[in-house]
């Protein structure tokens, strides 16, 4: 008898389960087509069923290849094919080239492939019921084998089939019919809708182009007869050259952009005849390039430039700046363009250069932005508003705008001399809403907003702020502060002054040496100045000055919170619970304070009447008297109390004490 554990080798655990019907490998399929066919063969409606059988979580995203990365073993188990086969058909992203993938051994830009929608060749499906990865390459609008135009939408419902669902790869995934069992079946069979065959004048050149990326016809491309320089580039670079040349010769006349094809590409421009034309150019390289240049030059009259290589061969010049082409090829094209221009008797090769500018003070906005470290957008806006003088030919919006270097320098200096209220608040360590009154009291000097300033509504002289800071710190004693000492900022908060600004009076008292302060090493001024205790500030009987904010002015949350002596979290809660409107105004805050109060204020009032309580003791005291909070802002804390009731209780307490 066999002893337990004698038989079978150990298999690592995997969540993958094989499908009932394994998929036979078919030529030209990538992983997306293979998975879709597996779903169809196994009578699943959704591709996600195949992936989940492989233990791959799937949330309906179309990138099947991306989902398969690192899960090749599981997918191979589910599909019933060797793992090497799965690895062969996955277009892996190239490590050193973002946006590129390995398409059956040929590096190909992802932008050229449609990962979301599939196209089919009905005639091919009649021959063999499988999809081809080459149909996903958007450059080709036809099947390289049958030369049939690809069907990219359902002939009946006009919707574009995807890689996500299927009633069978030959069916539209949206059009269905109930069969005699009551189950849904595909209704529109693409094989019933054969598409026209394409006709080109140069089939050999077209086959050469398709063979650059088509895994099925790759071996029979004419690359062996290519010019040595092109042959060494490899199929990927040649295909990218085909794309670039195709875009160049089909570009609309006014467009002479330098980076053709970098962003979205209109793939309908790659008609088979165009591809054949470009293919012939490559096959006859370098003479083919001259022929192509001749065709481009013939349209030079349509281009909206005056002279030079842009006028003559502008679309081809775009290739020189095309980063998707190898450096060597771009250099070669540059040389070919130059030689072509020289060989053309009518061409006038001129280049614009900064040294040709009439005034040396002028620099481009780009240069000014870089030189002074300011936003290019800001400079352009100032130039548009004529704040700074600028020059640009009328109607030439794409040309650089020139501005005066000296004027920009002046604006930059103006900006550096001013300081925003936000910065003042940070440096002094007070709320931003209290900065304005410091300016009104002459403690810092307000100035106009500099043109290059981007944030903040109010500005002050930087030197006045520096002076104030220095004076405050000079007053402070440098020895060790007392143990009971608190920073002025903390002491100011405990004053409980609502809807008024205590800081002008505090700073004036400070400068008048009415307060004895010690210096502690902290970032902001008011935190670095320490007074003996909280009572030292209270003894000054500070009442605060009214804020300069208009009653109807909407306040930012931080400002509003500072005015009623709370924080933004609690203020947001108050707004959420309807105690305050969204974007509260000073008027709203005043109404709120008239009706409600926080525990901190109650504690202060009680303390002034000789009852020193901790915060936690306040609620129980008032609950005993039948006064309950109107709401609790954070769990069982942050109570908001009805002011009238609280004041009545405090009054009773005072009488009782008396």
């Amino acid at each position, binding site marked *: *008898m066999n002893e337990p554990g004698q038989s079978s080798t150990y298999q690592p655990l995997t969540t993958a*389960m*094989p*499908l*009932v*019907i394994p998929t036979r490998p078919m030529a030209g399929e990538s992983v997306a087509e293979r998975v879709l066919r597996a779903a169809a*063969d*196994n*009578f*699943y*409606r959704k591709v996600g*069923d195949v992936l*989940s*059988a492989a233990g791959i979580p799937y949330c309906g995203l179309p990138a099947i290849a991306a989902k398969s990365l690192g899960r090749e073993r599981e997918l191979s188990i*589910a599909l019933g094919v060797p793992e090497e086969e799965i690895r062969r058909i996955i277009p892996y992203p190239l490590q050193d080239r973002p946006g590129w993938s390995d398409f059956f051994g040929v590096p190909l830009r992802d932008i050229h492939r449609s990962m979301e929608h599939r196209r089919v060749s009905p005639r091919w499906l009649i021959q063999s019921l499988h999809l081809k990865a080459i149909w996903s390459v958007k450059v080709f609008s036809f099947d390289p084998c049958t030369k049939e135009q690809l069907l990219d939408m359902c002939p009946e419902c006009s919707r574009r089939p995807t890689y996500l669902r299927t009633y069978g790869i030959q069916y539209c995934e949206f059009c269905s019919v109930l*069969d005699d*069992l*009551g*189950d*849904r079946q595909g209704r529109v069979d693409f094989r019933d809708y054969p598409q026209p065959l394409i006709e080109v004048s140069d089939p050999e050149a077209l086959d050469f182009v398709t063979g650059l990326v088509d895994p099925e016809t790759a071996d029979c491309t004419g690359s062996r007869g290519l010019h040595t320089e092109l042959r060494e580039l490899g199929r990927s670079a040649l295909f990218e050259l085909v794309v670039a040349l195709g875009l160049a010769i089909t570009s609309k006349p006014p467009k002479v952009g330098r980076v053709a094809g970098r962003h979205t590409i209109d793939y309908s421009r790659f008609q088979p005849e165009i591809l054949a034309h470009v293919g012939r150019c490559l096959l006859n390289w370098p003479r083919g390039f001259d022929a192509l240049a001749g065709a481009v030059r013939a349209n030079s009259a349509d281009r909206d430039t005056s002279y030079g290589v842009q006028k003559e061969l502008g679309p081809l010049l775009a290739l020189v700046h095309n980063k998707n082409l190898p450096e060597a090829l771009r250099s070669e094209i540059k040389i070919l363009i130059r030689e072509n221009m020289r060989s053309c008797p009518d061409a006038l090769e001129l280049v614009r250069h900064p040294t040709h500018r009439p005034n040396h003070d002028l620099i481009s906005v780009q240069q000014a932005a870089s030189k002074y470290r300011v936003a290019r957008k800001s400079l352009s806006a100032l130039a548009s508003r004529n704040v700074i003088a600028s020059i640009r030919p009328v109607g030439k919006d794409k040309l650089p705008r020139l501005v005066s270097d000296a004027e920009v320098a002046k604006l930059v200096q103006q900006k550096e001399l001013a300081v925003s209220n936000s910065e003042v608040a940070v440096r002094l360590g007070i709320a931003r809403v209290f900065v304005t009154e410091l300016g009104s009291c002459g403690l810092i000097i307000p100035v106009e907003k500099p043109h290059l300033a981007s944030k903040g509504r109010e500005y002050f002289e930087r030197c006045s702020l520096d002076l104030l800071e220095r004076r405050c710190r000079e007053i402070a004693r440098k020895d060790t502060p007392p143990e009971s000492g608190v920073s002025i900022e903390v002491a100011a908060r405990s004053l409980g002054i609502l809807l008024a600004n205590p800081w002008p009076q505090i700073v004036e008292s400070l400068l008048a040496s009415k307060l004895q302060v010690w210096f502690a090493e902290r970032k902001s001024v008011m935190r670095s100045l320490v007074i003996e205790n909280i009572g030292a500030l209270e003894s000054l009987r500070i009442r605060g000055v009214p804020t300069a904010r208009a009653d109807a002015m909407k306040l930012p949350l931080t400002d509003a919170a500072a005015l009623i002596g709370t924080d933004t979290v609690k203020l947001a809660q108050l707004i959420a619970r309807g105690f305050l409107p969204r974007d509260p105004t000073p008027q709203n805050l005043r109404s709120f304070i008239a009706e409600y109060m926080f525990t901190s204020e109650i504690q202060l009032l009680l303390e002034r009447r000789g009852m020193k309580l901790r915060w936690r003791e306040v609620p129980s005291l008032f609950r005993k008297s039948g006064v309950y909070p109107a709401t609790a802002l954070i769990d069982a804390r942050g109570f908001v109390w009805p002011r009238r009731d609280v004041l009545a209780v405090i009054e009773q307490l005072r009488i009782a004490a008396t």
Partner: protein
Amino acid sequence: MLVIDGQIAAEFLKMNIPHPRLTGAHKTYDELRKLKRLVPHKPQRCAFLFAPSQSGKSKTVESYIETQVVDEVIAEGLFPADMDRAVIAKTQRLALHVTLGSNSTPKSLAGDILEEFGDPHARAGTEVSLLGRVYRYMKQCGTQILFLDEIQHLDHRLTQNEKKIERASAPLSSAVPDTLKTMLIRGLVPIVFIGTSEAKNMIMSERQLRERCLSQIDFATLRPEISEERDIFERYLESLGVKIKQHGILEQVADLLGTGLPPLIHVVAGGRLGAASSFVAAACMVARERGASQLSREHLTAAVNEWAIPMELIDYNPFEQGIQEYERRRR
């Protein structure tokens, strides 16, 4: 109570002892498959196999697949000849042996069949979509015969009203028989319905199913008064004794046809071959515990006391007390 050693139980499960009833069942299966091959696109026929538990119903299917079907799929080149036959039996799809779960509905029936196919999403979908997938898989995999075992589980009312067997086994709803009938017609695959005697009424009450039956396989309890059936039982015991040695359970062949043993074993097993095998397995366990090299009457006697009576196969020990009067009278 005696616990039968796992190894011994496994070896008994591996045993394949041919007998006339098994051969008869296999012949019926062959005929059903022949019909499928000759008219693959016509509605197919079915066969019934109803018998008490431990009669060896499922064993007929397992032995059929492990011998005949496995040989065929190897001959057709679907599996390599050197592959483990047990693995082939499990993975082949020519003959599908589906054991239904308890309280089966038409949907769970479809799910059970899909699970047998190895569908990772056997339970996901509607009843219609699951059944549709079943039919397509059977067509795609070339399934020639479907064995639906424990068919009595299809009628869950039977277990809820065990005391009203007759009433409960008459199906109130026609959903289950309709599904089975549709499987014969749409699935285009012959079906063998296997179950206990209780399921018989449910299946046989449906006239259309009854009329599609090719044969009702006889697997009832073996009666000692019928010489042919007694002979089947004795030949089975004889083979079992030899297999005990062949499978390395005990060193010597067991003489189960010894003086007066067959009637006693027959009484203990209730005339069921599967129960007889289990009883002998328990006796082998006793023999091994006692270090014996051959199975003897003492071991069988002890097995009745330690295993058969606690298992409620019988309520007395015929090896010690002799066959009781009413049993003898019945004989």
